[in-house]
């Protein structure tokens, strides 16, 4: 065999590997999308047949009794997530403002690092935290304890997006405001924050959507409740927890309702985060 022949086959081999591997990467990406389609497809398919107006407006019925819905869980989820937002928003915004405007020091670095640490804490550990700190001391399950757990989980996301969005505001705006004689706090409150408001809002909504589906922290805090309850100091039903209870039950009609609940929950979470991305920045932070 001649040398050029060798070179030709070697080149052909390299080209073949090239196309082969490009194909493999495309296949992997397709597989990831197929996984998403499989999960969402089943949820939409099985969930849709469980949906009707009663499902949204009525309370759960006992096993075997037809009808019934998850009205209490929908309201409960809004209460718990609302409490979480009330808790996390001021702290997250304040911490984000600190990091961006005054945080160019060691304390700022420490807080940044700890926010990262906090975002890696498993949700079940957050549940234990809220349980020992609040539930065990008050000796009853409640919505605020769950709101606390979810709020702590939202904190890192809100803090870091606030910081990142405020950092994107050009320094010339700050300098302009200061040159006009505004004190620093007015510069931040009236110039920097409003300029970044849209991005911050997107981040906050994404954080809310993320924790709205969390179940593990609710197990030992809201505990779940098959009845109507808006008293935040009682056990309360939530969408993820109701879904979990229905899913692991041995009853067919409850399992059907689990799919319906899953559809409602997934739709709420996905639509919220899609809208936030659409109306916020073109590219969201993961």
């Amino acid at each position, binding site marked *: 065999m001649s040398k050029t022949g060798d070179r030709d086959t070697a080149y052909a081999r390299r080209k073949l590997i090239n196309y082969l591997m490009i194909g493999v990467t495309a296949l992997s990406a397709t597989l990831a*999308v197929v996984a998403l389609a499989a999960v969402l497809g089943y949820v939409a398919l099985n969930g849709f047949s469980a949906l009707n107006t009663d499902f949204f407006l009525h309370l759960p019925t006992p096993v075997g009794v037809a009808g019934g819905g998850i009205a209490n869980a929908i309201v409960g989820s809004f209460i718990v997530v609302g409490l979480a937002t009330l808790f996390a928003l001021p702290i997250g915004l*304040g911490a984000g403002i600190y990091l961006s405007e005054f945080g160019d020091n060691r304390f700022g670095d420490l807080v940044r690092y700890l926010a990262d640490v906090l975002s890696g804490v498993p949700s079940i550990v957050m549940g*234990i935290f809220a349980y020992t700190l609040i539930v065990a001391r008050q000796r009853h399950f409640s919505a605020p304890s769950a709101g606390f757990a979810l709020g702590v989980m939202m904190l890192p996301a809100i803090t870091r997006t606030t910081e990142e969005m405020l950092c994107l505001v050009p320094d010339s705006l700050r300098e302009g405001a200061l040159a006009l004689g505004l004190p620093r706090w007015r510069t931040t409150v009236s110039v920097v924050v409003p300029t970044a408001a849209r991005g911050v809002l997107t981040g906050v909504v994404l954080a809310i959507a993320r924790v709205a*589906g969390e179940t593990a922290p609710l197990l030992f805090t809201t505990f779940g409740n098959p009845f109507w309850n808006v008293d935040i100091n009682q056990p309360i039903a939530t969408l993820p927890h109701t879904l979990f209870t229905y899913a692991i039950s041995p009853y067919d009609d409850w399992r059907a309702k689990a799919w319906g609940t*899953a559809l409602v929950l997934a739709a709420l979470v996905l639509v919220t985060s899609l809208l936030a991305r659409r109306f916020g920045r073109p590219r969201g932070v*993961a």
Partner: protein
Amino acid sequence: MTLSPRAITRRAWDLPRNLGDVIFRGWAWLMAATILALIALLVYELYAGSRLGLARYGFRFLLDQTWDPVFEEFGALPAIYGTVVSSLLALAVAGPLGLLSSIFLAELAPRWLEAPLSLLIELLASIPSVVYGLWGLFVLAPILRQPVGSSFRNTLGFLSLFSCIPLGIGMLAAVIILAIMILPYITAVARDGLRAVPNDQREAMLALGATRWETIWRVVVPYARSGIIGGLMLGLGRAVGETMAVTMVIGNRPEISACLFNPAYTLASLIANEFTEATYDLYVSVLIELGLVLFGVTLLLNALARLLVSRVGGGLEERQA
């Protein structure tokens, strides 16, 4: 314009001119310090809650095999084994897939395809874990029991990996669910790492006559390796801490078995299942101690991941410098 004398000569009892700044900065500092305080409180609560278990068993029980709370026997080894095996196997599945997908997204996909694909993969990350669990329980597990499980057992049953009766729920189901769940995280972080590779690296390699794949595999990927490894660590951290989906599909049996079809247990699912059923203080305390262990492990993994990802640069660290 003339300045009033009052503006120049300030007296000691005057309020500082920048009072608003002092208050505002103090408030922001306080909020930042709250994060610090919350972490400290978290660690303290976990420690205080597990004091009873620590005093009685220390960390020895982590290596004991029997988990029988009725007789106060708390051997956490099966749960630790389950956590380690399920997350490592999930990483073994999702790691290569995620890396290849990220290569496709960052290097190869045409722009019109890249944006919607990225969005879809990020959507995978925002589906609640309990929804994955539901899917795993009612769609994945039946498939694993009948066609997949039995055919594996019939053909490869001589291997201890496939020798047991496939129940559907079990270690394998947990591995697959975890792999699907951590795939988007790995893909997103690795993609960002690949994107941060300067273009002249690619151009130089292409100019030397390398094919596209050779450019990617020999230059771009090695250049981005700390970001990629960081993404893998982050995914592993997620898998270790994941609770609901795993609890729903792993079968929750505290036994160590080589067979992939057998039910198993993880630290997180053990806590989720038994915490509300723990009837005496020592039991609760041991469960909290397991939470402390879980916290420690994920802390370590995340710290490593952050260290590697931040080396990629382009993030906040660079802007601050």
